[in-house]
């Protein structure tokens, strides 16, 4: 399992209802179904991923997140997940509001653009950072709304969103005392557990 998913799963209650936005190949939902008896539904647009979900028996709906989530009822899920998808959305702030309308709590993970490597890349080369983790050039990247840990904190304050837990990890998803001390500088992936105030 992807290591950020390893961390996420700890925040999900057994027997709860989970909506996974951009569920990929469905591996997290499948894991939650089999280990925690979670009732899950994933949304996905990639055909291969959808096929993988069906193959392992995960409920999946072909739906584009950019077209909104108005077809989901308020408070109809316990947890709504958004893993590594925030930066690819056309209106990420609206989607986070929608997550907290539909779920009692939400979990968001995203690549932290405030990491020192991105800062150094931009500062030293004067070009948009390209790395193993963010391999796209500026013109063909699906990632159109990068943000930093500090940016996300600010959004949560503006929208009255309560941060239940926040952790940052490196690409191997290891945390450390120094990442906890300087999350925006040292964290490579940010993981937030949020709810309404």
């Amino acid at each position, binding site marked *: 399992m992807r290591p950020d998913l390893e961390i996420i799963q700890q925040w999900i209650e057994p027997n709860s*209802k989970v909506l996974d936005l951009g569920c990929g190949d469905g591996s997290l939902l499948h894991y939650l179904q089999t280990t925690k008896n979670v009732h899950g539904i994933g949304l996905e647009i990639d055909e291969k991923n959808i*096929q993988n979900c*069906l*193959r392992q*028996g995960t*409920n999946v*709906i072909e739906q584009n997140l950019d077209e909104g989530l108005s077809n989901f*009822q308020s408070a*109809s899920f316990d947890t709504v997940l958004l893993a590594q998808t925030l930066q690819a959305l056309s209106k990420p702030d609206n989607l986070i509001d929608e997550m907290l309308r539909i779920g009692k709590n939400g979990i968001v993970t995203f690549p932290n653009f405030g990491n020192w490597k991105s800062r150094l890349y931009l500062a030293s080369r004067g070009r948009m950072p390209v790395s193993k983790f963010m391999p796209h050039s500026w013109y063909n990247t699906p990632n159109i709304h990068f943000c930093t840990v500090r940016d996300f904190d600010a959004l949560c304050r503006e929208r009255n969103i309560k941060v239940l837990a926040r952790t940052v990890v490196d690409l191997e998803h290891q945390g450390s005392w120094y990442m906890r001390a300087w999350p925006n500088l040292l964290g490579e992936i940010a993981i937030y557990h949020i709810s309404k105030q």
Partner: protein
Amino acid sequence: MPESIPIDSVGLVSPQVYKFDEPLTLRSGKVLPNYQLVVETYGELNASKTNAILICHALSGDHHAAGYHDEEDSKPGWWDSCIGPGKAIDTNLFHVVSLNNLGGCAGSTGPASINPETGQYYGPDFPVVTVRDWVNSQLRLMDKMDIPEWAAVVGGSLGGMQVLRWAISYPERVRHAVCIAAAPKLSAQNIAFNEVARHSITSDRNFHNGRYLEKGTYPKQGLMLARMVGHITYLSDSAMRAKFGKSVSDFEQNSSENFGRDLRTGTLSFGFNVDFQVESYLHYQGERFSENFDANTYLLMTKALDYFDPTVDFEGDLSKAFANSDCKFLLMSFSTDWRFPPERSREIVNALLKAGREVSYLEIQADQGHDAFLLAIPRYIEALSAYLKKVHEQSDQNAA
């Protein structure tokens, strides 16, 4: 039949007849005192009886869904693309049950059957049957076949509507509902096309108010016209362009530019004859259909479509209809289907989500229009196959 039976065919099959003597009260309030259903099955029922799949047919379908009836058959059953050993509905894994619905004209009791009360053809006296009536009759068939639960009920178009009715009326007898290219109810446009079809039949001078069989005739022209109109709604514009745009004329350099306007003979007649391939095709389809299908059955089937509305008992709220449907759902739609377009399937998906049901949904990119559900479209077949493999694994677990 092809020269040799393909390895992934169910091979030669023969239908069986099930007779029912207990009267069936229909949605209209009328009672069918007795009736018979003609059925084909493919694949073996396992010892624990957990691997049965019901196939529900659409407007002009019947029980002959797969394989060949005899050596002379030029074509296999109507859903042979999906049913067979190793196919999406895998007869190595499942016991597949396919029937001709009540009111049909392929062997089950319908307008062309003899009314036991009069000794004459039912004809126009055959009561209007609804999707609900069909499902009730399918439930009786299931009991007679001693099948406690369907691993899945599967159908496309009008067949998909029967799937929804199963999930609403008898969820305890269905583990998975697979509803393809369907709609929660017909739109005014859908009903309008059906009415054109019906009117063309009933206004044929050989219709004789539905009593044409006694007169040794049938409303051939009306039935042809009905089928021609229907056929147009099954195909998409792009499908027609591809189908009838194969030849290159002098002024049109390639098929995509000739808009499917292939000529039949190469020249225009400057008369009112058949000039274009598409005309010839529609005539052929209409003609073939009119020779094999009963006009009264066509009227009944289109009425069953028009009347389908599972929300009538639930204050118009489809999600309430699914309140107890605790089976799992798979829905699929096709991008160029303008008869039951993807939005119609989404209405069903959204109602299921609102009802808190477990549902998967795929929107398949396909040029073939509504007809796509009958065709071997790779993504569609792979998805159905993957889903049903999982259904089979679960039926194994249930058996263990």
